[in-house]
């Protein structure tokens, strides 16, 4: 964190933290606009924009028609020509409609034009399961964007990072994609007032430990921390790393930890196959930290199925605290 003097730290929610970041950006920079479906008087499907429209008006907090491809494209075109749009997808699942503009245009225009332009657009994606919204409103698709050069992709796990990464994204000249887990929106945490930025591309060790490294993203960071606490009763000291950015990956933080613990567990909600844990695992397995590995690299990811509606089934298809405890125990066997 890179904060100003005279700050005050308060407990506010993840939602409030994001809104505060947008409020600061809107007040400081006339070029910043918000775009998205029902972000005005409705306040956003998850009440993230809240009352900002009352303060900044409908010219700067723009409700778009239900047109994700066109809307994202308008944001890209606006970013190319002087504005700094923050585009909200109502659910990250609807990014499926806008991949063209995100991937073929926003991510590539700078490169295709030999560096003649930048595309300073920020997109926000409420992601993940746990709200009973079933298969088309619960996906975790960040790995898709993590596969795309030209984009930066972050997954803030705390209110502090949600604010700091959004302000960092706005400072960034390139397109930044922010995945916000819906179950975090109501989570509270300590957040400094005023402007500060959380660096894009830096993971954070949320808990130190020496027996096993747990690399987690988004809501899984909290589940991993809970698991780590429980593991302590078994004498297992888990180090928990909050990846925070999935593109570009913070290799150093992960590798340093693995060199120390010799055991790696990756925990993420997205479908296990080709989710971010695959990349973290492969990155470690091809690094010099490989020689420090004392056990196979374990991944806990989402099940190979769409997200079901029934709440018990819904819980069953994503990693839960007991799963993490069990996996970490298995890994740390003989280590303590």
């Amino acid at each position, binding site marked *: 964190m890179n904060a100003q003097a005279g700050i005050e730290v308060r407990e506010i929610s993840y939602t409030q933290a994001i809104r505060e970041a947008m409020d600061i950006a809107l007040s400081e920079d006339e070029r910043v606009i918000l775009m998205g479906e029902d972000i005005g008087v*409705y*306040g956003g499907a998850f009440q993230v924009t809240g009352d900002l429209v009352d303060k900044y008006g409908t010219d700067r907090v723009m409700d778009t028609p*239900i047109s994700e491809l066109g809307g994202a494209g308008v944001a890209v075109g606006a970013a190319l020509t002087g504005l700094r749009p923050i585009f909200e997808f109502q659910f990250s699942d609807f990014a499926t*409609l806008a991949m063209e503009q995100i991937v073929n245009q926003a991510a590539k225009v700078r490169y295709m034009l030999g560096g003649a332009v930048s595309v300073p657009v920020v997109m926000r994606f409420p992601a993940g399961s746990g709200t009973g919204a079933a298969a*088309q409103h619960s996906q975790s698709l960040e790995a898709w964007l993590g596969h795309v050069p030209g984009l930066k992709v972050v997954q803030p796990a705390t209110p502090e990072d949600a604010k700091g990464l959004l302000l960092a994204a706005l400072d960034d000249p390139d397109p930044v994609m922010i995945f916000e887990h819906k179950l975090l929106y109501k989570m509270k945490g300590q957040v400094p007032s005023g402007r500060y930025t959380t660096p894009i591309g830096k993971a954070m060790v949320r808990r130190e430990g020496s027996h096993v490294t747990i690399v987690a993203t988004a809501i899984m960071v909290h589940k991993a921390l809970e698991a780590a606490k429980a593991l302590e009763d078994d004498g297992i000291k888990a180090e928990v790393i909050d990846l925070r950015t999935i593109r570009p990956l913070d290799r150093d933080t992960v590798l340093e930890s693995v060199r120390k613990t010799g055991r790696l567990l990756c925990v993420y909600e997205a479908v296990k196959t080709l989710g971010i844990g695959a990349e973290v695992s492969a990155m470690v397995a091809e690094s010099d930290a490989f020689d420090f590995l004392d056990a196979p690299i374990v991944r806990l990811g989402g*099940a190979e*199925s769409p997200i*079901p509606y*029934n709440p018990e089934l819904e819980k069953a298809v994503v990693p839960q605290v007991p799963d993490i405890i069990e996996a970490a125990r298995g890994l740390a066997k003989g280590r303590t």
Partner: protein
Amino acid sequence: MPDSTASDRNVPYAIRAYAPDQLIDALRKMYLIRRFEEGAEDSYTRGLIHGTMHLSIGQEASAVGACMSLTDDDKITSTHRGHGHCVAKGADLGKMFAEFFGKETGYCRGRGGSMHIADVEKGNLGANGIVAGGIPIAVGAALSAKRLGTGAVTVCFFGDGANNEGAFHEALNMASVWKLPVVFVCENNRYGMSTSTERSTAVKSIADRAAAYSMPGERVDGNDFSAVTEAVDAAVARARNGDGPSLIENVTYRWRGHSKSDRNRYRTKEEIAQWQERDPIARMAAMLTEHGIIDDASVAAIEKNVEQAVEAAITFAKDSPAPRVEDATRDVYTPRAAA
């Protein structure tokens, strides 16, 4: 099928076109939708339902009217606000509630919930969680009907908000180029979530967009059962006859919020009250009474019967077993006989 001997100008189309028992059944279905959704709302409040739901209370004439001339072989595609369409196409209320409650006996075995209810046997290809997601699928169903020569027609329901999605444009264009047997029924309830058509849609009447696809477009009072039926029946006949698609815009209104999280800040209480005065069910009941198809006592009997049906459905759903957690990843792929 219009009865030409009774084609008195003063007699509404529906009265001329349908037999009394069909009309009474339609009225009953409209009540079923209303009570079903009230029951769902109540169950939600009691914590029996997980997730969210989108109620179509106030829009019953559109759902029931648009399905009047369809057979079980005809298809519909529906939306997130799809309970009415599902009931109109003949669904079983018990299976619907069971789905809401996430039970194994539900239409989707508890995997889909309100936003994905389908009833394939009755020709309902499903609600859809993606706005406009069902529109190209409806065109695909119409393509199947044409290629396979089944004679089936597809009615594609969607909202005013959906008409600004690219999928709407692409699908209507293809349906017209290929002259497919599909009827696009836009339920214009004035808002896509909080955004009014004035603020989202660059055309006064969505039906006017039909011209961009060289298909007939008609805007009707979507709370007038007879008007809906008249327009949709003609479009279904046209489709069945091989003359291609049509677009019907049913102007209607949802009485409830968009979903359970709506604070109703984008519209006034007065506006809601005005529309409640145009209650499609009361109007249908009045029309049938006026034309001597039914009397007040029978209306009351239907209402009572419907209430019992809803209660029985809720009981069935409550008593049904939940899916087994071990089966959470079943049905991702289709099982095949060992090679």
